[in-house]
């Protein structure tokens, strides 16, 4: 990592540390999600303009709040109910003369939880949930989000605008859901974080200026875990993300080529991080409330704990997949189970399981890539090549394409 990368990461992490708190404070003053969200974005953009030259201030939270407050006062002067809003600002001690910005005083942690649940409300489309969470909770700019998702900036801006309008017009509340709705709503939040993680994980090592979404995903999961320490699925997702990230250095070889699990140099895995993540997962499992994220983390933990590929405990992995399928049936999970079956039982058995999935997964590149491996195993090189070619057509990921091309050449 170059010096600029380090500076960029530090900047992103300082912004992230304070953006959500700033949003919470502004939400309290303005009572309006859209306004608070805009002010956060303005303050973040100002920080990204000034801090690289001037250095990160001693009190980044105070700096950000001052910018947001100035901007808020400007806004309020223009607003119809200027007097009412100004009075509100003064009353809360956020007036122009206020010496001590209250931003870091005591924004209760659970208010960031409200923020997260509002951003991830099921009445918003998934992509808007993701964009809002990144902007308000993590303090990403519209341009950073657009780059991370390979989408045009105006598309992201539009998504945000529409979502904010819907929050206001449809009466989406700013609060943590009641106990009876908490489980499905939490699932929604976890889905957003997991999606962010996947998006960042699958992206090949990007340009230095590109934002590492896996960083945001881990940070969000750990924030959520801190705010909801007794939710085992939150801990499960955090453990899952950490187990993947602990092995990230082994995923790419020289020149950025993707290295598959059997060929990875396991000495590059971060053993301490793996042990920590497994402890986290074990603590969560003690609650006896299993869920898809805990089980996925347990599967990844099986791999992460194993020193050599040959020693992988495939029977255990198949068993965990069975439990996962019981809780969350999905054709992609069945595909992964079939791959484990290949090593636990044999290629013939695995191929039989895959053949049942052809209908639903016919357009999924990993289905064809896995089939190719099994066919090659079973001595059908021509069919294997055809399957690899099909896989190649179906993936847009350059790293995966490279692996497939290599297999077609040398397979």
């Amino acid at each position, binding site marked *: 990592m170059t010096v600029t990368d380090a500076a960029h990461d530090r900047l992103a992490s300082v912004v992230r540390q304070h953006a959500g708190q700033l949003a919470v404070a502004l939400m309290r003053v303005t009572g309006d999600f859209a306004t608070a969200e805009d002010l956060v974005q303005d303050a973040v953009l100002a920080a990204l303009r000034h801090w690289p030259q001037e250095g990160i201030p001693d009190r980044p939270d105070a700096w950000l709040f001052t910018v947001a407050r100035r901007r808020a006062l400007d806004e309020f002067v223009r607003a119809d109910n200027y007097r009412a809003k100004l009075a509100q600002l003064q009353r809360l001690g956020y007036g122009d003369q206020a010496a001590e910005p209250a931003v870091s005083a005591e924004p209760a942690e659970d208010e960031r939880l409200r923020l997260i649940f509002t951003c991830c409300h099921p009445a918003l489309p998934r992509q808007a949930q993701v964009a809002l969470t990144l902007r308000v909770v993590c303090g990403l700019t519209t341009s950073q989000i657009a780059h991370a998702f390979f989408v045009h900036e105006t598309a992201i801006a539009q998504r945000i605008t529409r979502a904010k309008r819907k929050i206001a*017009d*449809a*009466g*989406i*509340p700013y*609060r943590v859901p009641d106990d*009876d*709705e908490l489980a499905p709503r939490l699932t929604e939040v976890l889905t957003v974080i997991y999606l962010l993680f996947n998006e960042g994980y699958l992206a090949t090592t990007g340009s230095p200026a590109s934002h590492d979404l896996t960083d945001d995903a881990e940070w969000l999961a750990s924030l959520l875990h801190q705010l909801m320490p007794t939710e085992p699925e939150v801990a499960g997702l955090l453990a899952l993300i950490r187990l993947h990230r602990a092995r990230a250095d082994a995923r790419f070889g020289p020149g950025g080529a993707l290295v598959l699990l059997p060929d990875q140099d396991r000495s590059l895995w971060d053993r301490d991080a793996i042990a920590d993540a497994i402890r986290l997962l074990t603590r969560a499992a003690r609650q006896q409330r299993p869920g898809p994220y805990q089980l996925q983390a347990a599967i990844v933990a099986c791999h992460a704990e194993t020193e050599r590929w040959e020693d992988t405990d495939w029977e255990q992995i198949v068993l965990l997949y069975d439990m996962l399928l019981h809780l969350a049936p999905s054709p992609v999970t069945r595909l992964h189970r079939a791959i484990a079956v290949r090593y636990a039982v044999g290629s013939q058995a695995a191929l039989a399981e895959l053949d049942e999935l052809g209908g639903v997964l016919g357009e999924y590149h990993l289905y064809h890539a896995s089939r190719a491996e099994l066919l090659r195993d079973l001595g059908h090189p021509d069919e294997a090549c055809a399957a690899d070619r099909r896989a190649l057509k179906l993936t847009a990921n350059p790293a995966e394409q490279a692996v497939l091309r290599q297999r077609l050449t040398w397979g």
Partner: protein
Amino acid sequence: MKYVLLLVETEEFARDLATLSPAERDRTYQRVVDWMATNAGKIRGGGELAPPETATTVRLDHGEPVILDGPFVDGKEVVSGYLKIEVDDLDEALRMVRTWPGSPVVEIRPLV
């Protein structure tokens, strides 16, 4: 906030309802009556619509008004009734709707 719940029926639902025995149908209606009673404090009005074949649609966007037989949207899912409700926010509306026994689809629209 005030919302209108658009109660939407599907062909499948109508078929299922038609095959019910009188006793089962009574029980289904009773569930709707119970739901209405439970949520009476939040309901501000509403009604059941006659079936779509009774609908008449008037188009005013092409000069002279054009009068057409049938509903505006011709499809397998039809609005069969509506309820006006007054609740704190969308979550409260969602909580009400979650237990609605009278139709398989509900669209929640805020009233401006």
